């Protein structure tokens, strides 16, 4: 989420490509626009976000805490969505993934349920 603009962003209001924000978790400075031209709301390196939009009431949120990625959702057209959870107030949000998001963390989250199944998966081989 955009936490503030740098000086270069203020000097060039017509060009949003130079607008940046700092990740609240890893501190990486990232541009607010991803390579595909869409606005991003999470860090491409650690995929963490910031709680600035209240999705229950609508409008800006007063929370402002860090949001950690908890799940991968697959849309009907095969695109992936990232589900975030606020570490302070537990609100859930979903956002589209950007082309330069960390693929290793995405895959790690996708296979995470299979690492700790609640039932033995061997039974499914006999079905």
């Amino acid at each position, binding site marked *: 989420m955009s936490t503030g603009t740098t000086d270069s962003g203020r000097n060039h209001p017509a060009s949003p490509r130079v607008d940046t924000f700092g990740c609240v978790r890893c501190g990486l400075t990232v541009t607010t626009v991803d390579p595909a031209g869409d606005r991003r709301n999470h860090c491409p390196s650690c995929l963490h976000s910031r709680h600035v939009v209240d*999705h*229950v009431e609508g409008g800006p949120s007063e929370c402002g805490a860090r949001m950690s990625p*908890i*799940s*991968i*959702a*697959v849309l009907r057209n*095969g695109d*992936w*969505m990232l*589900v975030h*959870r606020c570490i302070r107030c537990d*609100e*859930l*949000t*979903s956002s589209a993934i950007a082309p330069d998001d*960390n*693929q*290793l963390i*995405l*895959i790690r989250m*996708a*296979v*995470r*349920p*299979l*690492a*700790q*199944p*609640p*039932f033995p*998966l061997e*039974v*499914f081989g006999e*079905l």
Partner: protein
Amino acid sequence: MGRHRSSGRRPQRYKDVTHGRTGRGDAFRCVACRLDVPLVAPGTAHRNHCPHCLTSLHLDRRVPGDRAAECRGRMTVLSMSVRADGEWQLIHQCRSCGKLGANRIAGDDNPLALLRLALRPLTDSTRPIRALLTL
């Protein structure tokens, strides 16, 4: 089969939700598949979804169990999440207003439906290759 099962389970919040509006008292009927579901579920005190089709109903607003949402839309299952202690958790999305909700799976949830949901991100075979190429 949580990795941290030995560290002790987090105590569940006491459930004081009344199901008086359904008129049955000890069961609810699934809005999607019309299955009659008993409220008592093995492994959880907070069953909110059908064990057969995993569909839920949008009743709560911010706090689980507050029954303050006016929406009452159908919540279909969106994805599978894993808590830090290894418990599987369903992410529901309301078809009517788009709100997201999370609920632990119950002991009698359909394992095929759960596994199908957990495997959904892995059906795209190009993505693991792309992840390896970033190394």
